[in-house]
Each structure stands twice: as C-alpha cells, then as structure tokens.
C-alpha cells in the first residue's frame, strides 16, 4: 500500500514542470509583445544569397532595424543557394551577382522561378584579389598582376610566386620562391561566376571551362565556403602564399592587401569605389537591368578596375511562396533605403555606390513589388552620393571626381610602394630595376610618384615625375633582391657531432647503474 505514496514525487515534479513552462511562456509572451510593439508597421522579411554583398546588406539590415524598426533577415548562403531558395519560394527576396541561368554554360537545366521576379541592382563593387604574401618576413602590400597572369594562377598553370610572369608585373619586388595557393569558393557562388566569366571572356585560351558558379576541382587549390571562408583562410598565418577572389570589403575588413590589376589602358588599378564607378560607366544594362560587362573589362579609361560588377537583389513582382503584400511594404521600403541613403555607406564598406541611371531603373522595379509603398523616384530626396539633383542620369559624380592613377602604377619598370586594400597603411619598399613611388588613390588628383625616400636616394637621372630613369641602384630600406629562402634545416656535420654528444650524455646517465653492480661483483671477487 505504501508504494504509491513513496512515489508521490511525480505529481510534484509535474507541477514544477508546468510552473516552469508557465513562467517560460509568460516570458515569451512578454518578449513577443515587446517586439510586436516595436515593429508593428513592418512585417519581417527574409532573404538569402550572395556573400559578395553580404557586408553591405548586414550594415543596411542593422540600419533599417534601428531607424525604421524593420526586421530584415539576411543569410549569406551563396548566390546559387539564394536563387534556388527564391525558386523554391522559401524566401522573400534573394541576392545574386548573376541572373537566373536560363542557359547555363555547364549544361545544367535552366533555372526557372515559378513566380514573377525582377532584378534590382543594389551595389557595385570590384571582385578583388586578396593575398597573403611575405618577402623576407615582411608583408607585401603592393602586388600587381596582369589579367593573363591572374587567369594562369587560377587555372593552376602558374604555381610559384617567383614565376617570370609575376616578376615581370612586379619589377620592384624580389618575388620569393614560394608556392601559390589559390583559394576558391567551394559553394556555388556569384563571385566565382563573375570571376570565371571575366576569365573566359578575356582569356578564353587559358580559361576553357566557361562561366561557372562551381569552381572546378584543380590540384593544390584550397576550397572554402563563403566569402568569409576564403578571406578567413587567406588571413591566417598558414595562409601565406594564398590568393583568393573576394569582394573588396572583405579584404578591407581582414586588413589584407589586394592585387592591383592591369587594365586596358596599361595601368595597375586597385578596386576602390572610384575605379569601380569609372569602370562601370561602360557597363551595358539590358532592359531587365542585368549587366553586360564586356565594355567594363576593356574600358580604356586608365582609372578602370576591370573586374567591376553590380550585385542584384531578386525581388518578387507577384505574391507567392512565403511572400505577401504585407511583406511587400517592408521590402519596398528597404529597397528604397538601399538605393538612396544606403549608398552613402557603400564606399566606406568597400563597395561602390550605384549611379543615377541604375537608381532610377531600380525605382521602376521597386514599383512592381506587390504592396509597394515607395513613391516615384525623386532626386532631391534620394541622398545618393553619385549624383546631385538635376544632373544627367548617366553621369556618376564619383567617376567624374575620380583621380587618375599614379604614374608608378603604369605598366613599366616603376612600382608604387603604397599599400592596398586593408593594408593601405603598410608600405612595401621596392628594389631591383624598378623604383618606388606612392599613389594616393582616390583623393583628389593623382600625386604621381617620387615621394618615397628610397627613390630620391638613388639619385641619377630623374624623369618628369621625379622617378629615376635608370634603375641601377636600389634605395635604402629596400627588400633584399636575393630571393627569400627558408631557414636551413639540413643535417650537417655540426648536427652529427651534436647528436653524438647527446647520445653520450644519455649513455652517461644510463650506463653507470648497470656497470656499477657488475664492477662491484668483480672487485668483490678479487678481494678474497
């Protein structure tokens, strides 16, 4: 009879559980009440896609949350996954560098979204080549490469930093004997698509596999997922010798330099917001706002960064999937914010703001969102840094004011010492045949070269920009011209002697205890 009583703990435990649950639920309700009160005017929206533009979206997401109390979820899963999610209807919007692939070059079936969609450009940027390279233990921050060299590196045909092609691009650097580790994306990515598109258009003889979102498997390449994955790998200590393609903002964040890429005018240019803006003046915009970048790749303006492109938000033009008109209100307000105010932060983040013509076109797309609340485009209320009210929409203020590249960035024997990307503060002294010069990228006019101490020390003939013409003597503080070699760890005679000494010490420790008893026995036998 006593057994039920002895287990009377059970109801008590249950009571405890229900009490906890009650408290928990009450707390949850309090929470939801609070959030509902804050964001009562906007339904939360969710999107996935590109990691290329994720830094900008994260910043904007945060801004609209604090300014409008708007909940915008964004998850950088890669452009391919974003487009796939849009097709599946599991997100309200997606972000991708490339449009839906109606005729994919790799032979995969076409991507056809079941509900209406439109492309809205959100930001421009340069696909930069972030690298981690040291010469003599010192970070290199002024590397420059020509397009075909880049294509060969990412095809796996150039595998060492001291390759002649790289040395030819960098006359001021004594390239080390170090293997190149190309770090590429393991997930389906718009960055990969843009990068392979550029290679396949410009260097079809080197890059033969066409545009692809999935990077092909190549020996000794490193595959990481997401822009942060590749950037994170390059910025590790063990990432020395690595190079990757990633949006400029990631290099800025990680504090690592980016490659200055040779453009059609013969200048090595860094992907700053200005050089991207200049380059994109030659982008052809199709009626659906998608980009045709052949003109950008070969833009003859010396300020051009050739691998510039726009990133797009895929916005719904019909209700479907999880998208409702209530969400349309949020999405349209968010889109307006991105096109106007949001662009002010683009340069700081490492992107380039959209020019006026794309903003106007973007507004036209926003108007197609079901439930949109955004009025027609009004240049006076749109605080976009690329234009002032009343200007020709095809102009771009940034491009007009962009500085000419420094003369030391021209293809030839001279090489600027100024750092790039996130390592802009780090100068890299140059030596050898070329001489230094520093470029102040982006602010006002180009200052030309000749400001670095090393070149003035050289003396001799000086050209009109103050650079020495003859490159016989190298400046002070320059990196040694002898290739950097790893510390010798070969086994030589001293090591043998040392090892012998070590063994001797060990023997000296071990032998006596063994020998002593025997010796004693021998001595003991002798005594009597």
């Amino acid at each position, binding site marked *: *009879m006593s057994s039920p009583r002895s287990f009377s703990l059970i109801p008590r435990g249950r009571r405890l559980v229900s009490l906890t649950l009650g408290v928990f639920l009450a707390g949850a309700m309090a929470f939801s009440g609070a959030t509902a009160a804050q964001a009562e005017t906007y339904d939360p929206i969710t999107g*996935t896609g590109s990691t290329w533009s994720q830094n900008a979206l994260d910043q904007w997401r945060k801004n609209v949350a604090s300014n409008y109390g708007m909940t915008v979820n964004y998850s950088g*899963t*890669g452009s*391919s*996954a974003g*487009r*796939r*999610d849009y097709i599946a209807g599991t997100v309200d919007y997606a972000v991708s560098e490339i449009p839906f692939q109606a005729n*994919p070059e*790799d*032979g*995969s*079936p076409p*991507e056809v979204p079941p509900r209406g969609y439109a492309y809205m450009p959100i930001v421009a940027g340069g696909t930069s080549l972030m690298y981690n390279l040291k010469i003599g233990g010192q970070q290199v921050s002024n590397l420059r490469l020509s397009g075909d060299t880049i294509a060969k590196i990412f095809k*796996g045909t150039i*595998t060492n930093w001291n390759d002649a092609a790289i040395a030819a691009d960098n006359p001021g650097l004594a390239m080390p004997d*170090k*293997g190149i*580790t190309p770090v590429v994306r*393991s*997930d*389906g990515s718009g960055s990969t698509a843009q990068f392979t598109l550029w290679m396949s258009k410009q260097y079809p003889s080197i890059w033969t596999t066409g545009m692809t*979102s*999935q990077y092909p*498997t190549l*020996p*000794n*390449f*490193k*595959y*990481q*997922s997401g822009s942060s994955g590749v950037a994170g*790998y390059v910025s*590790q*200590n*063990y*990432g*020395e*010798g*690595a190079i990757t393609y990633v949006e400029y903002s990631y290099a800025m964040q990680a504090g690592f330099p980016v490659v200055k890429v040779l453009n059609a005018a013969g200048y090595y240019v860094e992907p700053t917001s200005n050089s991207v803006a200049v380059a994109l003046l030659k982008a052809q915009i199709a009626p659906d706002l998608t980009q045709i970048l052949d003109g950008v790749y070969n833009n003859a303006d010396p300020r051009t960064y050739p691998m510039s492109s726009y990133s797009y938000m895929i916005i719904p033009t019909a209700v479907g999937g999880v998208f409702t008109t209530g969400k349309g209100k949020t999405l349209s307000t968010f889109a307006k914010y991105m096109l106007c105010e949001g662009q002010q932060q683009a340069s700081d983040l490492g992107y380039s703001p959209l020019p006026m013509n794309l903003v106007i076109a973007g507004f036209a797309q926003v108007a197609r969102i079901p439930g949109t609340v955004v009025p027609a485009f009004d240049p006076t209320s749109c605080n976009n840094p690329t234009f002032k009210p009343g200007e020709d929409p095809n102009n771009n203020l940034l491009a007009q004011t962009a500085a000419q590249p420094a003369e030391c960035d021209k293809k030839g024997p001279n090489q600027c010492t100024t750092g790039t990307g996130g390592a802009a503060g780090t100068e890299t002294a140059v030596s050898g045949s070329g001489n230094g010069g520093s470029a102040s990228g982006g602010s006002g006019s180009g200052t030309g070269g000749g400001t670095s101490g090393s070149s003035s020390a050289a003396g001799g003939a000086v050209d009109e920009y103050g650079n020495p013409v003859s490159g016989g003597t190298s400046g002070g503080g320059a990196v040694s011209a002898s290739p950097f070699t*790893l510390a010798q760890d070969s086994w030589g005679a001293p090591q043998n002697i040392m090892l012998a000494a070590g063994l001797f010490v060990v023997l000296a420790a071990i032998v006596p205890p063994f020998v002593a008893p025997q010796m004693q026995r021998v001595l003991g036998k002798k005594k009597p």
Partner: protein
Amino acid sequence: MANSRTPVLEAERGSEKQESHEPVAGRRSLVSKPSRSDSVFRNVSYGAGMATVGIMLAVGIFLTLRATDALGVAGFSFLTEQEWSPETQKFGIAAVLFGTITIAIIALCVSVPLSLGAALLISEIVTPKVKTALITLVDLMAAVPSVIFGLWGVFYLQANVIPVSQWISTNFGWIPIFRVTNAAGELATEASAFTSSAFIAGIVVGLMVVPTQTSVMREAFSQTPMGEREGALALGSTRWGMIQTVVLPFGKGGIIGGVMLGLGRALGETIAVYMIISPIFVINWELLKTGTNSVSSLIALRYGESSQFGLSALMAAGLVLFLITLAINFTASSIVARSRSGAESG
C-alpha cells in the same frame, strides 16, 4: 487489495459482464478481459509504437524513394564517379566516400589507443574514488557539442598540427600516404599544403568519438568476473599480466563494439569536418595534404543550391552513408551480443 478490486472491476465492466462472475460449474477462465483503462493503455501504446515506426519508416522510405531518381540516372557509376555535378548528370560518391572513410579511419587511429588505454585504466587500475570521477568526466565529454570540437579544430589545432604534418611528411614521405606533393610533384614543405587535410579532420573527429568508445569499452571490462581476475593475480601475475590474460580476452566484444560505434559516429560527423576540410572531388591519397571530402559535409555544402534532382542525388549519398552506418552498428551489436561480456550484460 484483491477483495477491494473486484467491485471496481464489476462497475467498470458493466452489467453484461457480471454474468461470467456468477458462480457456475466447470472450468474457470484464466484469461481475463482487459479493463477499459487497460485497453486504452494498450491502444495508446500501440499507437505510439505505430507513430514511431511511421516516422522512422517515413524517413527511410522518403530517402529511398527520392534517392532512386538519382540512382536511376547514375546507375552503377554512382559508386565509381568522383565528380559531383548532378546538374550535368555526372555525379558519384567515389571521392566523397573515400574521404569519409579516410577521415573515419584516421579518427579511429587516434581514438582507439586512447580509449582502450583510458578504459583499462579506469576499470582496472585507479582507486574507486578516482574511478567514479573519471567515469563522470568521460561521460560528460561525450555530451560536448561537435561544433565546439570544430571550433577548436579550426582555431587551435589547424595551426598547431602543421609542424607535425610537415615532420611526418618529411621523414615518412617514402610511405605514399604520408607523402605531400605540390603541383610539380615534389615534396611540399609550405604550411598551406598541410591545412584542411583529412589528417586534421580525423584528429578532431577522433577526439569527438573517444568518450563514447571509452564508456562502451569500460562497461565491458568492468564485467570481467572477479574470480578470474583474482585467479590470475593469485597465480602471481602482474597487473598488466592480469589485464592481458583475463580482461582483454573477456572484453574483446566490448572493444570491437566500442570501436564500431565510434566508427559509425565518425562516419556521420558533419559540422566539425565541414568547418575544417577543403572539399575536393577527387580521390586524394595523400592524407596529410590539403583537400578531402565527406558525405555529410557534401550535403551541408550543397543542399541549398541543389535543384530537386540535385537533392535527390544528395539523398542517394545520404542513403549510402546511412546504410554503411547501419551495417556497422548492426555488426557491432551482434558482435557485442555474441561475446562473453555482451552475453553477461544481457
């Protein structure tokens, strides 16, 4: 009690049942009709069993059905093809499965000596107080989430294991699997050639499965009959002699079972592997060299960007992994059940 129950039952059963309780001549039925509460209970239990089986079969059947789409297209080449490109109908799990298995084997190489040693120490050598503490600690470690092992692997181990890999590759490079070559086919010495390798992933996964293995083995060892242990000691054996001659043979089933269970978990591990490796789709025999792959990290990597057919291919890969794990688990449990230690534990 018995007296008091009958009226209750009478009331529950209703009037027509009462006839059977009237005193009658002949045999009394030993089978009682279940009460209403009992039949409810029985039905609810059956229902729960059905629901469980329903859920589990739904998973299994759904996986199989969806996987057949892809398997039908790929056919036998699903097991031999290395490339993974379901969009172009060219896909197979040869490289992925190879990577999965190498990682699991490396994990076992790390975990088996550690878990065997620790299990023997805990069950045979330390004092009871220490024993309890160690058992708790090891069991506690079995609950550490795998993402934490992944963090440790990426942020600590990766950088610190490179010199070890370099050392192994320089000194044992004559063994093909320890060789690390660069693009030119020479021995590579750069740090970046050694990152994100199967070796690093294997170490992390190995540490992850060690606690599970240890507790399975310890459980088996602790069931060694005291008489046999004492017999060995009474015959003048040393402690190790006793372990070697009594405990190890007795616990053989437990050892194999533990190893297999660990293997099963190592094969299915996702997130730690995903964080560490650099996924490639070719078979890489150089275990210390960057680049490997695993089925579960392939799924984690590609599920989002896959079309319906791509998902089907991923499910086929998942199904293969599931079947392998299943086979390993059943083998393990049958070995354990057949062994002496398993038989005695019932």
